[in-house]
């Protein structure tokens, strides 16, 4: 029986000729990731277990991105704990304020992850790197501690859902709309314990940034990982960034899938997820006019340069609606700098947006855009659970950067096409 792409990567890292869904394996890790929230818990577990060394200080990345620049004393202590651990073991890939960025935008950008890798991260959106043809999955802090100590982890080999993409996205429809549509279709546990393997002729028409966004939210369908085939675009992206040998895997023609889902990209419309589950999707045309008080554009899902460009294209020559706070957060220093160089920063500021240093901040209700009772935010982030961005009676509507920007201008949920007449 053939293997899926994910199964091939896992087999290779477990040193086995083949694996099948349900097998329990131990696989070698190419990278172990943690952030300012999860690393301190891992450090405590590491020390409590009496562990005294890390498997490879070059294969651990610690990114201080969630509550940074530190919002309070407790958060500062978390960062201090993470820094001191990195120093103790000579961990070189420590990314701090001024060099940091949101981990899942930063790691691919820095070339720390590449095709064929096997990566764990103590952050659920670690599945983002599937866009590069890597197996990567979110774990908790104890898994991170074990991974740092021995460079291996246990996995149950996942079965897979084959997601066949055809056609090409229409204007103002992006990777975010693709993944929201898919989650709406299969549900928040539609891919529980499984891989989402994206394939089909439509893949070639998706930019790398679209693929990162799609793989990023695989977890929101319960998936263990989401993965894309490696093509010319992938190789162009990793060239000049990723210097380990690339291992390109393809699913076998006779690989087994437990389900197939076909999405015609050209049929998709701008889509949002209403509170309080990412699967609660509606097309923008169906919820047009729903008032908002805040718009957040950024995050590990949508804080890359093409997201900034999509938002800036809407804001150019327009103003954020009176009564709406719009917070734009480029995901990394490099994206920030690129915004400055391309004149996007000026467009955001002239439109009346707040333009922030990279941080996860508002996405998890940490800081930089927390809401009180009764407020609603449109947000390019990934979760709209109860209380996610603040008060339990505040609401988050998930959307793409173009839709979030258009809604910020309109003062209520809108698509760019809706702006033409009035604004």
């Amino acid at each position, binding site marked *: 029986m053939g293997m899926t792409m994910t199964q091939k990567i896992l087999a290779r890292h477990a040193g086995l000729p083949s694996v099948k869904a349900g097998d*329990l394996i131990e696989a070698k890790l190419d990278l172990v990731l943690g952030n300012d*929230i*999860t690393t301190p*818990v891992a450090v405590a*577990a*590491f020390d*409590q*277990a*009496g*562990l005294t060394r890390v498997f490879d200080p070059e294969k651990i990345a610690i990114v201080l991105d*969630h*509550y940074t620049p530190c919002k*309070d004393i*407790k*958060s500062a*202590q*978390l960062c201090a704990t993470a820094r001191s651990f990195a120093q103790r073991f000579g961990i070189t890939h420590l990314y701090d304020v001024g060099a940091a960025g949101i981990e899942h935008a930063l790691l691919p950008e820095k070339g720390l992850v590449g095709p064929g890798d096997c990566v764990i*991260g*103590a*952050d*659920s959106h*670690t599945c983002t790197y599937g866009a590069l043809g890597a197996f990567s999955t*979110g*774990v*908790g*802090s*104890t*898994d991170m*501690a*074990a991974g740092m*100590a*021995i460079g291996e982890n*246990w996995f149950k080999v996942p079965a897979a859902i084959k997601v066949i993409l055809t056609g090409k996205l229409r204007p103002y429809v992006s990777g975010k709309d693709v993944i929201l549509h898919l989650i709406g279709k299969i549900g*928040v*546990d539609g891919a*529980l*314990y499984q891989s989402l393997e994206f394939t089909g002729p439509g893949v070639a028409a998706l930019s790398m940034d679209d693929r990162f966004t799609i793989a990023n939210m695989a*977890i929101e369908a*319960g998936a*263990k990982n989401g993965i894309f085939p490696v093509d010319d675009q992938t190789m162009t992206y990793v060239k000049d960034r990723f210097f380990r040998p690339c291992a390109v895997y393809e699913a076998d023609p006779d690989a087994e899938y437990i389900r197939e889902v076909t999405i015609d990209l050209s049929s998709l419309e701008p889509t949002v997820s209403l509170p309080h*589950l990412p699967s609660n999707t509606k097309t923008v045309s169906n919820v047009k006019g729903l008032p908002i008080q805040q718009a957040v554009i950024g995050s590990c899902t949508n804080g890359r340069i093409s997201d900034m460009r999509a938002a800036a294209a809407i804001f150019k020559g327009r103003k954020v609606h009176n009564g709406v706070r719009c917070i734009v957060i480029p995901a990394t220093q490099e994206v920030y700098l690129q915004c400055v160089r391309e004149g996007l920063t000026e467009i955001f500021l002239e439109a009346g947006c707040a333009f922030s240093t990279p941080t996860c901040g508002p996405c*998890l*209700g*940490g800081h930089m855009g*927390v809401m009180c009772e009764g407020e609603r935010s449109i947000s390019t982030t990934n*979760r709209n*659970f*109860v*209380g*996610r961005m603040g008060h*339990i009676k505040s609401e988050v509507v998930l959307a793409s950067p173009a839709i979030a920007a258009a809604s910020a201008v309109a003062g209520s949920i809108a698509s760019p096409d809706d702006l033409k007449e009035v604004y």
Partner: protein
Amino acid sequence: MVTGKVFKYGDNVDTDVIIPARYLNAPSPAELATHCMEDIDAEYASQVKKGDIMVGGWNFGCGSSREHAPIAIQASGAACVIAASFARIFYRNAINIGFPILECPEAVAAIQKGDTVQVDFSTGVITNHTTGKIFQATAFPGFINEIIAHGGLLPYLKARQER
């Protein structure tokens, strides 16, 4: 074996309601426990007693990878979580910290809030003393039982390395 009162919740209980992100900078499990479940059940943290049992529906623990979630439930005094299914990172995290979880959709469907329920961890047998009904939870694969028996992943790895 534990016997306790049931605190019951619905499907898709996410880690943001188990322990909201605004408290993730708290330094200790005891402090996390005081905010456990507060966004969907403000009474839980003050009412739960040691040995009580949390019951959830499908996809329990979905969302973020925060290990603070099973840590907070464990520190709150609950002896275990019984759910119809668990989100995969929560599942790993609970096992890795040695916190018992049981998958049993039939028990979840039949158990009500406030019931007195007994759980035998060695057999996976769940007994609802309020109604007299008995259920069998799904068994874990062998090596996961070993991790649980050692009290978590790191003690298990350490024991294995010393063997």
